[in-house]
């Protein structure tokens, strides 16, 4: 399968299902304007729990975006992933109905950090409330982490390399890198990303053990990283899928080459060891820059992890400074996710989508809800800032200890 010619892995399609927008254009409009959509969790059975605020996807119309039968057959996290994948494929010009000409040339990779918890809770309730014979057959394919990759592969007829990283947040970037490597190894295109649906009663109970979780009940104050008022992160549902494609293949079929997945680094420094994450994140950035052949000064914008825990935010600011040096004070930094929450593995994929859109529009979006910065970074606040953006750095850290960095460049990589 290996080929001699260079095979830059480029982004040719973006699909978003997020609390601040269904479809990519709606998402970008909200991000650009710094819209805050965090709100009280309204899902049935959640009202009494100490986690009050989240980013909920509203107005998702399954029959329009996927097919109504999937409401019975699989979980919400897969509905979002399937819808985002279909949007990304349409965007890339690969959304044909009859399946691809060369099915083995397109793969599917997703990251998953919470699985089909709502579906699982319903079936657990049938099992324990009524008996084992009341558990339905779709439980066997809806709860597990691989559900989204499998459903997307089947729906679109993609038989290429299919994978799932069941990860903490950083897994979203690992998945994108996994797809880019599959492309470099010879696969034509990979639909990749993550979508999550952690807002069901039992799933929320499970998250209460994360000490980094914000339980502040005012949506405007619940998630404010890099400030003295930082009090944890706010979870969200939704996510994004990308089409990552061999650049030559994309050009040959006349697709728009939007960005290049240029470099990735992944390290591990232990669950909730935020002080140590400084070194781990710095190392991940170095590896990503090295793979991208990118000097620190070339980074034009940083999309940080922005956990919202003071110790973690400090470690992240220091990690950026450790690697970017004096440039760290000048480079604009933005965390649009403060407007809609952290969708676990979906969060860094949404950031990657935002990074591509920001480069295309020459605009660094703002960081909603964040005003008084308590660190040495140039965090873009209040309104979007015009800037010539050629290279973006996306960072992510997971609650179980992973750190990841992704370098994304505007346009293709062949001419570079």
């Amino acid at each position, binding site marked *: *399968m290996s080929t001699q010619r260079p095979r830059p892995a480029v982004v040719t399609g973006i699909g978003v299902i997020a609390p601040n927008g269904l479809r990519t254009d709606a998402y970008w409009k909200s991000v650009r304007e710094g819209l805050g959509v965090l709100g009280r969790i309204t899902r049935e*059975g*959640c009202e009494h729990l100490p986690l009050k605020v989240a980013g909920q996807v509203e107005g998702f119309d399954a029959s329009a975006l996927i097919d109504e039968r999937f409401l019975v057959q699989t979980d919400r996290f897969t509905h979002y992933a399937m819808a985002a994948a279909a949007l990304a494929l349409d965007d890339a010009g690969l959304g044909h109905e009859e399946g691809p000409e060369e099915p083995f040339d397109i*793969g599917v990779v997703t990251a*998953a*950090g919470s*699985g089909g918890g709502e579906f699982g*809770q319903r*079936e*657990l*309730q*049938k*099992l*324990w*409330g009524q*008996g*084992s*014979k009341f*558990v339905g057959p779709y*439980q*066997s*394919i809806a*709860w597990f*982490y*691989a*559900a989204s990759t*499998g*459903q997307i*592969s*089947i729906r679109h007829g*993609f038989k290429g*390399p*299919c*994978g*799932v*990283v*069941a*990860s*903490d947040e950083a897994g979203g970037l690992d998945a994108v890198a996994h797809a880019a*490597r599959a492309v470099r190894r010879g696969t034509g295109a990979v639909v990749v990303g993550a979508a999550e649906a952690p807002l069901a*009663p*039992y799933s*929320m109970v*499970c*998250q*209460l*053990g994360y000490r980094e979780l914000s339980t502040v009940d005012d949506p405007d104050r619940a998630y404010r990283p890099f400030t003295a008022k930082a009090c944890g992160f706010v979870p969200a549902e939704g996510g994004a899928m990308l089409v990552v494609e061999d650049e030559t293949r994309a050009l040959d079929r006349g697709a728009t080459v939007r960005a290049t997945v240029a470099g990735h680094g*992944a*390290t*591990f420094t*232990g*669950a909730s060891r935020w002080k140590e994450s400084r070194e*781990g994140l710095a*190392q991940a950035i170095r*590896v990503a820059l090295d793979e991208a052949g990118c000097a620190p000064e070339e980074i034009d914008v940083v999309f940080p992890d922005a956990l919202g825990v003071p110790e973690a935010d400090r470690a992240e600011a220091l990690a950026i400074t450790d690697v970017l040096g004096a440039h760290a004070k000048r480079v604009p930094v933005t965390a649009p996710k403060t407007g809609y929450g952290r969708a676990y593995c979906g969060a860094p994929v949404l950031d990657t989508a935002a990074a591509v859109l920001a480069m295309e529009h020459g605009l660094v979006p703002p960081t909603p809800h964040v005003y008084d910065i308590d660190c040495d970074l140039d965090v873009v606040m209040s309104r979007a800032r015009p800037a010539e953006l050629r290279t973006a750095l996306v960072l992510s850290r*997971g*609650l*179980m*200890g*992973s750190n990841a960095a992704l370098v994304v460049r505007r346009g293709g990589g062949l001419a570079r």
Partner: protein
Amino acid sequence: MTRRVAVTGIGVVAPGGAGTAAFWDLLTQGRTATRGITLFDPAGLRSRIAAECDFDPYAHGLSAELSRHTDRYVQFAVVAAGEAVRDSGLDTAAENPWRVGVSLGSAVGGTTRLEHDYVLVSERGARWDVDHRAADPKLHLAFAPSTLASVVAEEYGAQGPVQTVSTGCTSGLDAVGYAFHTIEEGRADVVIAGASDSPISPITMACFDAIKATSPDNDDPEHASKPFDNRRNGFVMGEGAAVLVLEEYEHARARGAHIYCEISGYATYGNAYHMTGLTGEGLEMARAIDTALDQARLDPTAIDYVNAHGSGTRQNDRHETAAVKRSLGAHAYDTPMSSIKSMVGHSLGAIGAIEVAACVLALQHQVVPPTANYEIPDPECDLDYVPRTARPRKLRNVLSVGSGFGGFQSAVLLTGPGGRTR
């Protein structure tokens, strides 16, 4: 220049006895570890049998913290990784930690503990608006699938790429495959790779009941798992873990490590057909085999043994037989192909890694493990399934294949000393 990937350590926690030695004894003696379920009361279920591990975390020296707050599948993995690292002789403290990674698979992760606490917070399924006060404060460790790789990485000081892989029943093969790629591509020099699952719980047994995938032979559990036999009627649930130490070949040689074999090829494809269904042709699995062979630059005739997925469902065993014949051609009839699920059951995501471990041991001992309980041929499954008795054989290249819900079809190729033709 391509970096080669060596296997330098093995650790196993499998039904029938923890440890690599006990595992290999079971396989080569053709004994079965399937029995009536003891981990919970299975009354009311259609399939009430499983291959269970007799496992006490304290007896294996796990800390009280790990023993109390992590799920059984995490504990299996920690123990198996410990054995693998000791076996490899690797001094993890002396390694550059950024160059040591972890790649572990699991299909269903912490569902057993999730179910346990669900029963408490829901008052046995009585309420949707569950009461968080009844839950273990560390329940997030069962919720987050990455706990598996995280805990093992922490135990053994790995600070490089750390991933949990969850591709259903090919998770184990894919975790080994991802690790292989990680080393080959130069992103790490050592990866602790394998898989673990502990799915023997009411919800998982009930969901496989619902699709009639598991064997209902409750009266004769020892003979319930009958891969390739015409009487086969479903798989028997299992549990366990296997972990390998994978290492860049020159890195292993430089420290004088014992090299069991190399991982020489890996591929995975989707069948894009159905979440649980398999085609009769096996086209996608065949493609995975072909790609793995291509990577290793080997002809199909170089394959000396196929470790089958062989779950013992009607459709799987036919699908797989068709796939192997498609790839190996006439050579398929001369190649022994066995399923160790006949002995240790089907531990979902873990089994792929357990089967790779069996392949490593087969190469080491030059013995093919048998398919236990194989008595009556199925006309559509007409290969040499190594009935009941282990068989000494010259082995250089062995193949392990698997299929998973979601349509995953994976193949891992292992090459022993002298097996390389390039």
